[in-house]
């Protein structure tokens, strides 16, 4: 699934580059780029490195786990694999929202064997960000939580500001 999303992103980019002329395209490709998956949480756009996302699924039935840390809404099973589901809204102290047709779970495997599913409002698309398009978390001012890795400003979408997350820190809490 991610592979398809990725390829679509590539296509979009090459079309854009094509219009800008082949010479420009070559110089742009020389710049190191990292792929980010963008998603929506309470109206804001966030993004994580796509390498950590194994799969994007519609939310299956979730079993609540009593006494679990508050961001964890429960456990579920994706093809026989037990997944701990964390609501990123709760994690970032955003107001809760009901699960709807656009809600998705990003399956990630951060440390060791545990599979964690992150509940997000809506998945957008993949952005290939060059280093010049990424700013450190300090631009958000003062002291920031450890899970904020920086801010992405894709040149292709001037209207978008991506909050880049460090999932390891977000999940470890």
């Amino acid at each position: 699934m991610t592979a398809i999303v990725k390829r679509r992103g590539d296509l979009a980019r090459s079309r854009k580059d094509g219009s800008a002329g082949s010479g420009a395209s070559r110089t742009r490709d020389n710049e190191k780029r990292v792929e980010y998956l963008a998603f929506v949480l309470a109206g804001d756009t966030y993004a994580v490195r796509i390498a950590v996302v194994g799969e994007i699924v519609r939310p299956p039935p979730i079993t609540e786990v009593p006494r679990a840390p508050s961001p964890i809404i429960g456990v579920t099973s994706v093809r026989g694999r037990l997944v701990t589901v964390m609501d990123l809204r709760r994690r970032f102290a955003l107001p809760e929202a009901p699960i709807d047709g656009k809600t998705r779970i990003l399956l990630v495997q951060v440390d060791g064997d545990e599979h964690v599913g992150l509940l997000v409002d809506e998945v957008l698309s993949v952005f290939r960000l060059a280093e010049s398009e990424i700013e450190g978390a300090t631009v958000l001012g003062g002291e920031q939580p450890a899970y904020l890795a920086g801010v992405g400003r894709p040149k292709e979408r001037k209207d978008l500001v991506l909050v880049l997350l460090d999932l390891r820190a977000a999940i470890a809490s």
Partner: protein
Amino acid sequence: MAEQGGGGKGENDRAREEFLSEAQELIDGLGRDVLALDELAKGGRSDPELINDVFRAVHTLKGLSGLFGAALMSGLSHELEEVLDDLRLGRIELSQRVLDVVFRAVELYGLLLTVERGSGADPSADVEGLLVALGEVSHRGRAGGASPVAQYELDPGLLGVLTEYEEHRLRTNIQNGMSLYKLRVSFPLATIDTALDELKASARPHGEIITYLPTGGGSDADAIELEILIASKEQIEVLRRDLSAHKLVIDEVPRRPLAQGRTSLPVAAPAGRVSLAPSFNPEAGTQVLGQLPPAPAPLPSLVPPEAREVSLRSVSQTVRVDIRKLDHLMNVVGELAIVRTELMTVVDRLRNRADMRPLMQELLRLHRSFERHLGQMQGGILEVRMVPLGQAFEKLARVVRQLSREHDKQVHLVITGAETELDKLIVEELSDPLMHMIRNALDHGIESRDDRLRTGKPPLGTIALNAFQKGNQVLLEVEDDGRGMDPKALAAVAVQRGILTPEEARDISARDALSLIFRPGFTTRDEVTDTSGRGVGMDVVKTNIGKLGGVVEVTSDVGIGTKITITLPITLAIISVLFVEIAGRTYAMPLASIEEAIVYDASLTRSFEGREVMTVRGATLPVCHLARTFGHTTSSPPPHGFVVVTSVGNRRVGFVVDSLIGQQDIVIKALGRTLRGARGFAGATELGDQRVALVLDASTLVEEAFQAHDKTSEKIAGRLPA
């Protein structure tokens, strides 16, 4: 092309994995044998067979590690082999010093293996040091002197083909005053291997077989006649009687008149060092130990080719399997169990259709057959996963030996029930907790020699490690005859450490006081050693055992000793559970700890010290509402639910649930690390319909229910939603 390269690498990885597990097995066996040698050496004895086994194992390790480029291991093996060769050929004595070096080598092998697996610090320095020590104990010269063998009228043809080792054994036996006998026996070619083994076994109690070789005589073409030289302290009549089953001729080898004594003995090449490449075959995936050259090799060239073929066929019938593959199979069986359940619902739906009756019955029959075979398959896989606890015990014996030397305490480790079987994963996980407990027993439990003598105890302390099966559980006991623990002293320490208030310490029962050793933070050495106790990291022991679904309990008598008992389920992967409903949610309760389920009636319960209790079969039973424990709120609690009477160790609690759904065997899956904080759950399992149910951890919940009234734990309880 790139893919092909990748495939080749996978093959190599597999071969390497095989090498690692093969080496691990050899090293484990080595440790076992060296321990046995140590036991014998304590009694001033030795066992040439055992030394041979050790030599053979090291020889194989050398070959394997060389093959896989494990340079350090190969170097170590080379030097160790040298020393062992000296040992088995009698060039050096089996002294305490030699044993120490060999023990260190075994330890180091373990370390080197971890390094080969890609973790652990660089052990080159240790290897260096040990190589020096090995060089010091080995004897590169050879003791000369006239041979006592010359006193016997032995056939020079026989003497001429003796290996150096055999010659050494012959000499030693003669020096020990044994008599020599010559046996002539004829074996059918087809069964020579087993027949010879049987003969060896029956001859062994009487003496030692020095060598055997074919005579070339015998009338039968399908049989082979062997001449066997045996050294024994017995009279010839005894041998004739005890070996009569084998149809053989025994003659005593007469002594030569002294004047005619031979001056020297022809020395044969050391056939024991035949360097056949180890028969390691990455493609076949298994290595068969039986094919390795035995040392000393029993004159292979003289065994007719037919016999050799026979021995090739009688290779070991075992296959080594990665535990993860078994886990996978177990999961598949779990999925099949789900399919079975779903199938049953189809049968139920057909039941209501009159026209489908014949079809339904056929389906039902198939379903039963499916169920039966599935059960067999499940049992079969579980059985394959079982290993004897002895695997973990052997490592412990080594630890005890090492520690008792370090602490200068004489300790005897008595092991019973090493053959008790448990799931492989449980046995693996047990090693560390057991080691911890034994270390504590030795460190804090067993008194110094002087103290023991003063209190009239035998100077040799005893640590007993007992394992036995009890129903669906395995019990493990670590018992010492040391100074024991005083509950009052433990309570006092707990007050010092801020774990108990002085009032609580005053009221605490002896049993609860002993359990204090499992509290985190209780275990700072100074405080504990000063009073009486032990308990370095006993909280970790308890946690680890709890993860395996087990319980730890402690009993102790001051001045007499301490006993720690671990109760464990036999298998991890599949458990029988009772599905129950609590506030509209489905939970699974492990059947192993459930005694019975009875109807709950609020009018039959009483409040007692702020706790709800009821009387079941004349005994008082604390009652715990799981909906409350889990913070589930229900708009309409059912008028009457059920009480599931659960027992863990000696404690019983009645858990109140809304309804009972039914029992089932399930595959249990571990919860992730982010859910560590959610106490009371052993894992989760899949229900048929894409849903997941949590499996309750009976031991934690029972313990919690007992603590719930403690003032100390009110704080914890207060944090939970009421």
